[in-house]
């Protein structure tokens, strides 16, 4: 079946511009996660959704970052007034439900470059 998809696959933007990154989870998965992968930094948790609500937003680096999920499906991560330090690969994952007993399935990521 279809896996997690993310768009765009690559995004180059100028410093100060806003960007939107999209994630389509596996159908039927109620939990959705956003991570940021920087060189040598591993995967940094940003936010997760259970359904349409986000119980844990603690990983968002600043108030320039926001995310929403609608219809319990698609999620959008928005970065406002992008900075060069925002350059990274943004990964989305989904699982049947939240909690550590459910495997997370990852998408291919969006590589964001801020110039």
């Amino acid at each position: 079946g279809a896996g997690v998809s993310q768009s765009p696959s690559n995004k180059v933007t100028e410093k100060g511009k806003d960007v939107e990154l999209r994630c389509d989870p596996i159908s039927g998965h109620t939990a959705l996660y956003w991570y940021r992968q920087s060189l040598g930094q591993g995967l940094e948790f940003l936010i997760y959704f259970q359904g349409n609500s986000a119980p844990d937003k603690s990983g968002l680096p600043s108030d320039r970052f926001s995310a929403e999920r609608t219809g319990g499906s698609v999620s959008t991560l928005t970065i406002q007034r992008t900075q060069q330090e925002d350059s990274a690969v943004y990964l989305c994952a989904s699982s049947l439900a939240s909690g550590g007993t459910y495997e997370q399935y990852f998408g291919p990521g969006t590589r964001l470059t801020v110039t």
Partner: protein
Amino acid sequence: AQSVSQHNHHVILSEAASLELGCNYSYGGTVNLFWYVQYPGQHLQLLLKYFSGDPLVKGIKGFEAEFIKSKFSFNLRKPSVQWSDTAEYFCAVYWGNTDKLIFGTGTRLQVFP
């Protein structure tokens, strides 16, 4: 704060060599433990996981990991690596009181024929 440490950042081996990648986590109560792998150009995928029971768990492609509670460790092993094992390996820990998965910084494995 909960954290996950992978001390080997880059490992280079010849085919047929044995592999052990270290993973340690900070103390924090009940944990579920995972190893994920990212092959070049591919998505992250689950290699193996430990929730409870036998502390030696076996995963795909001949990998295994041992949970040693007293050492807060979950090291990944493979007796004989292949060129196709070249990838980046991530240890991840789920703490039940936080409801999120914390990843280590990853270990890049290169296997030469």
